[in-house]
């Protein structure tokens, strides 16, 4: 860490007053948050003050908290310290904090390295890594910032899920966090405690002969209070399906559940089901499954409930015209949008204001992406004027980020930010959209900051380690509505 002249003088004076301490022992000279005044790039990055970005390094095995306004890494944590051989920090969500420089909690999921990137077929690889969900804590209150594990939620609940994590907002604010996994087709909802308690869990199974989807509540063992899905237990497929692998032969029951996203104003959440191109809408007051949206163009708005038997809801899914990937609500809650991809590359736009989700209708589609660019992730802004989407592409294409006007549902800007683009997340003031690209876990990778008003690329920072996700720490529960809760 370099020291500017002002800091040097401040430290020297402090040392002199102390009479004996050297400058290196002065806490004021080496504050835990660097002040870049006088540095050449201070003006460039100073406008991002207040934004702490969490960046999990998928193949680096660590997570870092970065002060975007310096920029510098405030603290980082290697999950290898938790005893995991080849940890793959995957998705992330942060609790709100009025002063993220002082502290905040966040959630991190992890999956085993078996994936198309590595030789899952190889016996040498099949036992490396693990499914994990951690509650983590950043502490910036002292002279040495730190990140630590608060709870190994998989061990606590008996269910380990490795894909998206999202924290409840609106009517579900300050209550719940949801985890999902497409290798197990499960969703777990817990409370927000340091020793989390299970609130509800779901499992999805397809019957390809009857062409029906069964969504069931699953329950922990009554004696232990835990599930028996720690580690690889419950896994249908040994790697998370890459984009396009929805067509890959898999376990016949596999549907590739990906995430649970929260409605910002109504008591609903959506289970995103990639392989079926469907989103199951859950009433978070009762946790009953109340609708199954079919998001493909050419399909009905929803598929019918065939029967409910105990805690299992059976829906007819007679045909699947395309898989989807992510889906979620815009900040206002007025629309639910779904990224259809692989066979159709479009974004379905549902009006989502009715208190009966079976009345949610597809009003339009964002289209024109061709056959090489797949709508993948979405990012919100506070006033819901725009929605940002990641358009992912396979090699040798880079993919790009696009900005869609939520009045016309037309693409109004796009950027080739780099190869293998992933998530988008807005800064706390709503002025900038941050996005990461990971170079297919090996090549060019970085964090790009886009200006929401003038579409200028404001900054680009290196991010070694393949950032598959990131999140800007929100400042409030209202701010969480345009963070990674309503959308992923």
């Amino acid at each position, binding site marked *: 860490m370099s020291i500017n002249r002002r800091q040097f003088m401040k430290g020297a004076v402090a040392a002199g007053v102390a009479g004996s301490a050297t400058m290196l022992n002065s806490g004021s000279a080496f504050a835990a948050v660097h002040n870049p005044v006088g540095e050449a790039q201070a003006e460039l990055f100073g406008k991002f003050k207040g934004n702490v970005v969490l960046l999990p390094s998928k193949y680096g095995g660590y997570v870092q908290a970065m002060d975007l306004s310096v920029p510098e890494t405030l603290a980082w944590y290697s999950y290898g310290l938790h005893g995991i051989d080849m940890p793959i920090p995957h998705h992330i969500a942060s609790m709100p904090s009025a002063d993220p420089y002082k502290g905040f909690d966040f959630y991190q999921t992890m999956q085993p390295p078996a*994936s198309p990137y590595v030789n899952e077929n190889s016996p040498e690889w099949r036992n490396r890594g693990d499914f994990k969900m951690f509650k983590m804590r950043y502490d910036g209150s002292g002279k040495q910032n730190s990140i630590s594990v608060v709870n190994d939620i998989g061990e606590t609940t008996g269910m380990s899920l490795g894909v998206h994590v999202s924290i409840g907002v609106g009517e579900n604010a300050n209550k719940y966090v949801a985890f999902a996994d497409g290798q197990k087709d499960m969703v777990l909802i817990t409370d927000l405690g340091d020793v989390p308690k299970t609130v509800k869990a779901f499992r999805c199974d397809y019957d390809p002969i009857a062409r029906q989807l069964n969504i069931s509540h699953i329950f922990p063992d009554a004696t232990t209070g835990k599930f028996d899905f720690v580690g690889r237990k419950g896994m249908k497929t040994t790697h998370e399906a890459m984009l396009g692998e929805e067509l890959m032969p898999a376990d016949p029951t596999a549907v590739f559940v990906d995430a649970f996203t929260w409605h910002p104003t109504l008591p609903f959440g959506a289970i995103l089901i990639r392989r079926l191109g469907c989103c199951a809408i859950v009433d978070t007051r009762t946790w009953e499954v109340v609708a199954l949206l079919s998001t493909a163009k050419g399909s009905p708005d929803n598929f019918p409930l065939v029967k409910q038997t105990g805690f299992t809801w059976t829906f007819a899914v007679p045909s699947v015209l395309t898989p989807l990937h992510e889906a979620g609500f815009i900040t206002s809650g007025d629309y639910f949008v779904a990224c259809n991809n692989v066979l159709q590359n479009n974004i379905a736009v549902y009006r989502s204001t009715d208190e009966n989700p079976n009345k949610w209708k597809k009003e339009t589609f964002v289209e024109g992406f061709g056959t090489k660019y*797949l709508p993948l992730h979405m990012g919100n802004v506070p006033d819901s004027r725009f929605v940002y989407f990641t358009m992912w592409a396979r090699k040798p294409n880079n993919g790009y980020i696009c900005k869609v006007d939520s009045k016309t549902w037309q693409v109004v800007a796009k950027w080739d930010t780099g190869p293998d683009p992933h998530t988008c997340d807005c800064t706390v003031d709503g002025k900038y959209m941050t996005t990461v690209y990971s170079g297919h876990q090996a090549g060019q990778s970085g964090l790009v900051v886009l200006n929401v008003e003038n579409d200028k690329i404001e900054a680009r920072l290196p991010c070694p380690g393949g950032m598959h996700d990131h999140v800007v720490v929100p400042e409030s529960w209202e701010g969480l509505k345009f963070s990674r809760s309503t959308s992923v």
Partner: protein
Amino acid sequence: MKLQVRHDRSSGRIKAACAFVSLTGLLALPMGSALADSKDGTFPTAEQVGGQVYIDPVAVGQKLPTDFDTYDMNGQKVDLGSVVQGRRSLVVFFISAVPVSVNELAAIEDFTQKNAKGINLVMVNADTVGAALMGGPKAVIPNSVKTMHFIKKEKNLKTTKIYVAPNDALSADGVSTRLGIRGLPTSFLLDEKGVVQKVFVGPQKWKKGDI
């Protein structure tokens, strides 16, 4: 969970419609149009891969296509057609990424040994996912063969007829699209001419008379 597809449960109209859509879709492509493959990053349209995600397997009464690349346990290319020609065969497709499909191999072998004497049991790993990481494209078959040997040893399989058929799930010509397999294991019971007699999707509670 028992998942079994038999002739009387399949929908001829759906198959005919899918076949028509698929055929017309392909015919509609101008010469030189890019079909989905692993080279230029193109993804397929529904019409190119059977009309939707869940396509039906090759139906009873049809000849099972076998003219795709297949390799034996030594990494040598073999003609799958000649492997099944002239013998009543059960061809079981699985992939190592799907535990339920790998676990079913030993159950099928045990069942056929006891209840289907003389059946020609053939196992085909219908994918090579991830096999290129260590050593690039040339390592795909050797690494997959290595895995076959590992599975054979781990599951204590007696059969030597275990093959690997590289699959491109995004291609109209891919093994999974041509055979209509989305759930694994999928087993095809063939007569001596290679014509499908029964199709079994998913793990089965095998009983006498099934084969």
